[in-house]
């Protein structure tokens, strides 16, 4: 302690001297500090192993905090929902942890809470996920429940009925939210009724009402297999500690055949049309503009990412600077490509002041078309690439971020050296690449516009834009003058 103090006093004197030297000259604030040499980023080292039943295990050790996170990634996403049964994947996930052959719903919850852990089952378009986050000292207890839920779920009828009602009510509540209405209607409109992405992954009142425990069990038995999953572990543990534990609790999980299906090709939007959903008295309009665009596997991923960051992927993007900072129409406007296993949507979106609805649609279309026609400048290219490269280092700070990065490698079958080559791939994008992808993927004549707002206030202005026919829709995106 004494030596520390002495050393500290010494360094304080030196610091004071330096300060005095610096104060003797006036600081020139017109000179911007530049960055020193970029610090080295150590990418997470992925250790891999396989359980005796074939389950792949990926581990990244991190011992800074006494926590460990498990994420079992199953190739069972809502894109597997039968067209007449939307919501099946997400309902299966919801009911999975509601009872096992030896624990009821309350016991599962009690055991997890008593160790301060969090445990959940969820799903996305591309996968289902069992996640457990716990103090590393309670890993054995946590995994015991995790494994029981995974291997021995009984889908109790009474819990199923409770969650069925819960889900139907929450679908009803989605109708309260302009953003939820806009998102659902937009998906329905651009993907139609013959593609899974056109449905609500939470289902419809009719599809949920029609579901039975047997449907969930069948989905579980088809897709929840060790050969259809990978377990990601990030945190305070070692392979030699965790593998024996896993063998003990999930070694019995048996392989099986998993149904193979391919996603249909979405039909393109044939011409620009404005779909209008009425929300009487709404002070804002929610706008969505886009079309079914690109899968994660596209070879244009990097060029499109660079292009979109300039179009609407950051605060300094053209769309946000125009609609928010220049015109004050909105709290924030953006665009994005949702790269999924299938062709996910391109969406430009904002909530805008109702009185500025038509002007906002006009500015969105102006920016998209300008990008389509002219691409970006050399200066913008440098700006965006530098930003993406700098930001990369910020994405590997937490266990959650690392688990997310690993999950994307697993779900989309990206090469193992994907992150090693990321910076190089961004750096390699040229102006010509951006020009080519903007011309190819931003054709506004093949996009739909969805507006959720007060029809009586916004319809006239939208008509006057003259960009496309206007079709009035219900909150699910079905035209009002058609029968479903």
């Amino acid at each position: 302690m004494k030596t520390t103090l002495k050393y500290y006093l010494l360094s304080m004197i030196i610091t004071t001297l330096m300060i005095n030297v610096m104060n003797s000259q006036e600081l020139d604030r017109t000179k911007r500090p530049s960055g020193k040499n970029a610090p080295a980023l150590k990418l997470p080292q992925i250790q891999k192993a396989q359980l005796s039943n074939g389950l792949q295990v990926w581990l990244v050790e991190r011992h800074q905090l006494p926590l460990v996170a498990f994420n079992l990634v199953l190739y069972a996403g809502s894109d597997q929902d039968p067209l007449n049964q939307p919501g099946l994947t997400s309902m299966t996930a919801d009911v999975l942890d509601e009872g096992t052959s030896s624990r009821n719903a309350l016991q599962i919850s009690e055991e997890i809470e008593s160790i301060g852990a969090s445990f959940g089952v969820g799903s996305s378009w591309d996968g289902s996920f069992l996640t457990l986050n716990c103090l590393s000292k309670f890993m054995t207890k946590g995994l015991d429940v995790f494994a029981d839920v995974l291997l021995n779920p009984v889908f109790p009828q009474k819990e199923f009925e409770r969650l069925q009602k819960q889900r139907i009510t929450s679908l009803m509540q989605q109708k309260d939210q302009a953003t939820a209405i806009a998102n659902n209607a937009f998906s329905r409109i651009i993907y139609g009724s013959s593609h899974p992405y056109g449905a609500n992954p939470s289902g419809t009142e009719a599809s949920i009402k029609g579901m039975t425990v047997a449907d969930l069990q069948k989905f579980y038995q088809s897709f929840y297999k060790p050969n259809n999953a990978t377990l990601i572990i990030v945190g305070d543990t070692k392979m030699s500690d965790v593998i024996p534990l896993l063998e003990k609790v999930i070694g019995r999980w048996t392989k099986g055949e998993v149904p193979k299906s391919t996603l249909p090709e979405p039909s393109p939007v044939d011409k620009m049309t404005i779909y209008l959903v009425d929300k009487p008295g709404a002070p804002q309009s929610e706008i969505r503009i886009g079309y079914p665009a690109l899968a994660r596997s596209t070879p244009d991923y990097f060029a499109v990412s660079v292009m979109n960051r300039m179009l609407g992927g950051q605060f300094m993007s053209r769309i946000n600077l125009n609609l928010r900072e220049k015109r004050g129409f909105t709290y924030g406007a953006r665009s994005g490509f949702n790269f999924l296993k299938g062709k996910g949507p391109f969406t430009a979106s904002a909530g805008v002041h109702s009185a500025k609805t038509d002007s906002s649609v006009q500015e969105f279309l102006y920016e998209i078309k300008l990008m389509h026609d002219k691409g970006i400048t050399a200066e913008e290219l440098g700006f965006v690439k530098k930003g993406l490269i700098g930001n990369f280092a910020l994405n590997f700070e937490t266990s959650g971020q690392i688990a997310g990065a690993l999950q994307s490698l697993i779900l989309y079958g990206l090469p193992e050296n994907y992150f090693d080559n990321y910076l190089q791939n961004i750096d390699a994008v040229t102006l010509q690449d951006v020009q080519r992808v903007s011309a190819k993927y931003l054709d506004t004549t093949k996009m739909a516009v969805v507006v959720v707002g007060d029809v009586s206030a916004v319809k006239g202005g939208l008509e006057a834009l003259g960009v496309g026919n206007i079709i009035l829709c219900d909150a699910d995106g079905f035209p009002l003058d058609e029968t479903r």
Partner: protein
Amino acid sequence: MKVLLTFMVISMALVMQSYTQINITFEQYTLNNGLTVILHEDHNAPVAAVTVMYHVGSKNEQPRRTGFAHLFEHMMFQGSAHVGDNEHFKLLQEIGANINGFTGQDGTTYFEVVPSNYVELALYLESDRLGFLLDAMTMGKLDNQRDVVKNERRQNYDNRPYGTANEKILRAVYPPSHPYSWPVIGYMEDLSAASMDDVQNFFKTYYAPNNACLVVSGDIQPSEMKPLIEKYFGPIPRGKMFERPKPVQLKTMKQERMMYEDKVQLPRLYMTWHTVAGHTRENAVMDVLSSILSSGKNSRLYKSLVYEKQIAQSADANQDGSEIAGTFQIQVTAKPEKTLTEMEQNVSEILNILLKDGVTQSEIDKAVIAQEVQVINRAATVLGKANSLASFYSYTGNTGNINTDMEFYRGITPQEVLSTAKKYLKEAAVVLSVVPEGKGELGAKKGE
């Protein structure tokens, strides 16, 4: 001034049962102009967070200028004497930084998470807007951000289900003179009224080094930081002292019952009690009580209303301890066609049982371990640590409380929960019913 070991220490202590605690080490000192500087080293990733927190929030506003602290926060991103319009964002997004600011009742926080070789740029930008904001201020910028903030209000409050419930409750639960009686986002007419004079006065009063703290957390060397911080922040002059709003003794009021119709499908009941400010033992006890009521399937409100009887879609309890006062709130969203009268009766029944028979030690233990994990998770990012260090300094005057705050949760007994609950959870101060349009009959009626 303190120097501590610079690595995070994980210590296990045995008190009744073992618990896990992490210790966040930091160094703190004050510049001549009164700016408090807090440095924390963490070399796990090549990133650093720069946080500047000003001890001013909506509670420093004047009644007909509500929303001003937050509108002002927006103006801080619009350039300063040496930083052009939008250049603040441009310089930071160019290096891939994550940037934001947030305003609360008590404080306003600005942060940048940067690759650690760019900390100096963040210090430069933060110091320029603290030292030289007004030189670049124009009416055009103010009008633009006024529109942006009005849209923020439309988006997050006016066009959102139940979005204005909170401001109606605040207005009822606090007297009009109390600075927590208005919402942070402010009222539309007050946003319209904000003038350039307001901007200048607010800046001159509250944006002074002696009303701020600067935290740099992450992959940094304190010996390199200190001269840079002095270089950029040292020359900024100290500001005048001003008077902070003080806690006031709130008169016990007659229960206020309100109802309004909203564009919602389900009715929702809000019951609000006056409790206690944050960073106190009683705040921790009420926080534990809120977990016992609504955290997890076995919690009392959830288990009864949502899980067993299935008369509610959701049930939540929350203790909100701010700097000079606190409230406890229960929110229950009823299932379709259920009345809020039924919800209120059920909540009262559950509270009465609790106030009669108390809670169990095991219920307390679950709440405490959840808090323990939450505190550990706060240390998972350099930004989480920077913002926590800044808050503990600003609100408690002792940054070291970041490592001892958990003590408020240690040793809580069923007896203590019971006596604290009895003290605060008498008749609710405000009962608000939000009902679907034209469904006034679903509102909570007293004593039926």
